[in-house]
C-alpha cells in the first residue's frame, strides 16, 4: 500500500499535462458548442479527438496505430484524472469510443475496422449502441428485433428504445435476434447499420430536463436491408461479444464515476460555506452533517474504486465493479440533491437562465440517467447478491 504514485507514473502525468497544455480545447470553445447528445461531435471535439489519436493520447493503453502508446493501466488512470481535473470531455461519443470501436477492433473484419472503427477513433464519425428495446431493458436477452437472412443480405424489423445519441450517430451497433428458436442468449447477432439506411426512423424522446436537446431516442426498423458483410463476428454470438466489449470500459467507467463525484464534491465545497453562512446555526449544523456524510462517501468511493482497480490490474476481476456502479451513481444523486437543497429557490432556475450545474434541480434530475441506465441499481444489487455473495436466484 502506498498513497503516492511512483515517479515514472508522475513523469507520464507530466508528459500528458504538457501535451494537454498545448492541445486542449478552451472552456469557451466547449461552452459555445457543448456535447448536447452522446453522439453529437462538436467541431472542437473532432479536431481534439484527431490530435489525441495522432499523438497517442486517445486510448493510451492501445498501440500507436490505434491511437495509443502502449501505456499501462496506472498511466491510463492518471491520464483520466488529468482530463477530469481539466474538465475536458475525453470524448463526446462515449459509446463509440468506449464500446463500439474496441469491439470492432476485437471482432470485426479488416474492412469493418477500416470503414467503421478507424473513422470513429479519428473523431470523423459517431456511433450509437442499439441494445435496449421496449421489452428488453434490464432483461436484455429478451430482445425481439429480427434480422432474417435473405441471400447476401439481412432484412431487419423491430424497434429499439433509449438509444443514446441515435439522433446524431452515423451508424448503429445493432443487436438483433437471428435465431428465434435458440435459447434467449444464444440467438443474438450484432450488425453494423448506417443510420441513413432506408427503413430506419429515429424519433427523439424529450427528457425531463433540457427537452430542446434530446439524447435518448426510439429507433424504428422497417424492412431495413443490410449486406451480410455488416455482420460483426459470428452469427448468433452477439451475447458473448457484448459481454466482452462491455468489459472493455468497465474498469475505467467506475474510476470515471469516482472522478465525477470528486468534481461534484469540489464544486459543492466551493459554494457551501457562503451559503451556510446565511443560515441559522441549527440549520448550518444539519446541512454540514449531510455534506460531511457525503464527503465520507466521496473519499470512500475513491478508496474503493482505486483499490478495486488495483485488484483488477492484478487479478483481472474485482467485486468492486458492480458495487461501484451502484455506489457512485447513487452518491452523485445524493450530492446533487444536497447541493440543490443548499441552493434553495435558486435550485429551481432552469439551465436557460443559469450556467453550471451546482445546486440545480435539473442536475439532480439528470443523475437518474445513471442510476437507471446500463443496468439499474436494482439489477446491480441482484448481481452483487448472486454473483459476488453467492445467494441463489429467486
Amino acid at each position, binding site marked *: 500500500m502506498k498513497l503516492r504514485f511512483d515517479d515514472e507514473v508522475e513523469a507520464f502525468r507530466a508528459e500528458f499535462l504538457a501535451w494537454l497544455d498545448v492541445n486542449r480545447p478552451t472552456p469557451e470553445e466547449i461552452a459555445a458548442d457543448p456535447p448536447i447528445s452522446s453522439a453529437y461531435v462538436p467541431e472542437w471535439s473532432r479536431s481534439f479527438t484527431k490530435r489525441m489519436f495522432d499523438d497517442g493520447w486517445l486510448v493510451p493503453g492501445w498501440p500507436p496505430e490505434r491511437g495509443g502508446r502502449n501505456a499501462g493501466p496506472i498511466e491510463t488512470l492518471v491520464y483520466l484524472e488529468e482530463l477530469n481535473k481539466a474538465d475536458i470531455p475525453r470524448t463526446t461519443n462515449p459509446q463509440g469510443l468506449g464500446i463500439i470501436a474496441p469491439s470492432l477492433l476485437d471482432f470485426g473484419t479488416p474492412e469493418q475496422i477500416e470503414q467503421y472503427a478507424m473513422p470513429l477513433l479519428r473523431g470523423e464519425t459517431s456511433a450509437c449502441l442499439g441494445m435496449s428495446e421496449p421489452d428488453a431493458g434490464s432483461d436484455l436477452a429478451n430482445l425481439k428485433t429480427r434480422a432474417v437472412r435473405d441471400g447476401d443480405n439481412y432484412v431487419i424489423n423491430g424497434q429499439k428504445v433509449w438509444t443514446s445519441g441515435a439522433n446524431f450517430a452515423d451508424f448503429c451497433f445493432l443487436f438483433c435476434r437471428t435465431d428465434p428458436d435458440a435459447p434467449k442468449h444464444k440467438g443474438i447477432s450484432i450488425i453494423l447499420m448506417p443510420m441513413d439506411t432506408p427503413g430506419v426512423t429515429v424519433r427523439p424522446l424529450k427528457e425531463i430536463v433540457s427537452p430542446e436537446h434530446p439524447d435518448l431516442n426510439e429507433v424504428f426498423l422497417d424492412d431495413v436491408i443490410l449486406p451480410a458483410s455488416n455482420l460483426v463476428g459470428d452469427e448468433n454470438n452477439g451475447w458473448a461479444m457484448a459481454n466482452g466489449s462491455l468489459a472493455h470500459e468497465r474498469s475505467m467507467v467506475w474510476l470515471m464515476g469516482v472522478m465525477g463525484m470528486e468534481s461534484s464534491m469540489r464544486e459543492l465545497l466551493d459554494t457551501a460555506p457562503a451559503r451556510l453562512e446565511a443560515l441559522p446555526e441549527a440549520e448550518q449544523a444539519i446541512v454540514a452533517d449531510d455534506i460531511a456524510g457525503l464527503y*465520507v462517501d466521496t473519499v470512500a468511493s475513491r478508496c*474503493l474504486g482505486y483499490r478495486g482497480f488495483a485488484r483488477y490490474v492484478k487479478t483481472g476481476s474485482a467485486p468492486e465493479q458492480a458495487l461501484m456502479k451502484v*455506489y457512485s451513481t447513487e452518491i452523485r444523486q445524493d450530492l446533487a440533491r444536497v447541493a440543490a437543497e443548499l441552493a434553495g429557490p435558486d435550485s429551481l432556475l432552469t439551465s436557460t437562465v443559469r450556467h453550471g450545474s451546482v445546486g440545480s434541480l435539473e442536475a439532480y434530475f439528470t443523475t437518474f440517467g445513471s442510476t437507471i441506465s446500463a443496468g439499474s441499481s436494482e439489477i446491480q444489487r441482484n448481481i452483487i447478491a448472486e454473483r459476488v*455473495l453467492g445467494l*441463489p*436466484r429467486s
Partner: protein
Amino acid sequence: MDLELSDDQFDLRDNIRSVLEGACQPALVRSIYDGGGSADALWTQMVELYWPALGVAEDAGGLGLGFVELGLLAEELGRVAAPGPLLAVVSQFIPVLTEAGAEDELAAAAAGESVGALALAENGRWDLDAVDATATEANGGWRVSGTKAAVLAGAHADRFAVVARTDSGIGAWLVDAANSAVTITDVIDPGLGLADVAFEDAPATLLLAPGPATTEALTRVIEQATVAMALHTVGACRRIFEVTLEYAKVREQYDKVIGSFQALKHRFADMFLAVERANAVGYYAALAIAEDDEARAEAVNVAKAAAGDCQKLVAEDGLQLHGGIGFTWENDLHFLLKRAKAGEVLCGGRTHHRAQLAGRLGLLGASA
C-alpha cells in the same frame, strides 16, 4: 497510489486469522460473558507470538511493522470479539510510550511483561479539550488526580498512561494500577474490560511534558487509537455480515432459502457495500498515519464515521435477518453485535467524527 494490501500484509492477516480462529473460539468468549472464563491463556499465546511487539520499533525490542499491519491485527481481533487487553496495548498504550521514547517501559510492554492502558476519556469524549484531570509537581515528583471513564482494558492493566492537564498544557503520565482506584464497569461486552479509573493524588512519572509538541504527539496517539477502533469495528461487522449471509443460505421459509428473496438480497448487497466501504477508508486512514500524510486527520474522521455507518447498518440488519434466533443469548451473534456497538461508541461515534470533518472542511465555524 496503491490502496490494496501487499502479499506480505495478506499473509500476516491470514496468519493472525488462523491463530485467532483456533485460540479465540466462541466458547472462550462465551465463558467470559457467562462469568468464570479467563482470557489469560489467550494473552499468553499472543505474547508468545510477539503480537504486542508488532508495531514497536526493532531497536526498542519490537517487530517494527507499520500501522497498516496494526490495523490488520485490530480488525482480526474485532472479527472474533477477542477478550483481553491486546487492542488497548497495541493501539493505545504503546503509541504513547513510543511518542514519549520511554525505552524501558516500551520494551516491557512489547515483551508482554507489562499490560498498559490509555486513560484519556472524560465527559464521554476522547479529545484533549475534554480533559479535566490534573497533574501537579511536588518535591521533584508528580501527582495525578481525576477520573477517567471507559478506559479500554482498564480492568486488565497494571499501569496507566494518564492524560492530564497542568497550568502549561496537556501532558501524559505513567501511573501504577496499584496506586489508582479502578472500578470495573459492567458493560455490554465484558471482553473489553472497560473500567472507570479514579486517580486521587496518585504518584506518577512524567511521560510527555506539557507543551505544543506533546499536544501534537497525543493527537497522533488519539488518531491511532481511533483508526484501530474503526478497523476493529469493521472486523466485528464483517463477521456479522458473514454469519448472517451463511444463515440466509440455509434458513428456509415458504420452501425457499430466505437468501433467494430479492428484498433480502438487496439488503445483503448494501451490507456488503457498507463493510467494504468502511474497510477501504479504514486502511486508507491507516496508510495516511503510516506515511504521516497531510490528510491523516481528515482520513481518521472519515474512517471512524464510515465504521459507524457500517455498524449501524450491519448490526441492525444482521440481527433483524437472523430473526428470533439472533435475539437469544445462546446464539453467538450477540458477542459480535455488542463488540461492534462498543466500537462505534469508543473513540467517538459517527456524529462526532462527521462534525469534526465538517469543521475541517470549513462547513462549521470551528473544528468540533
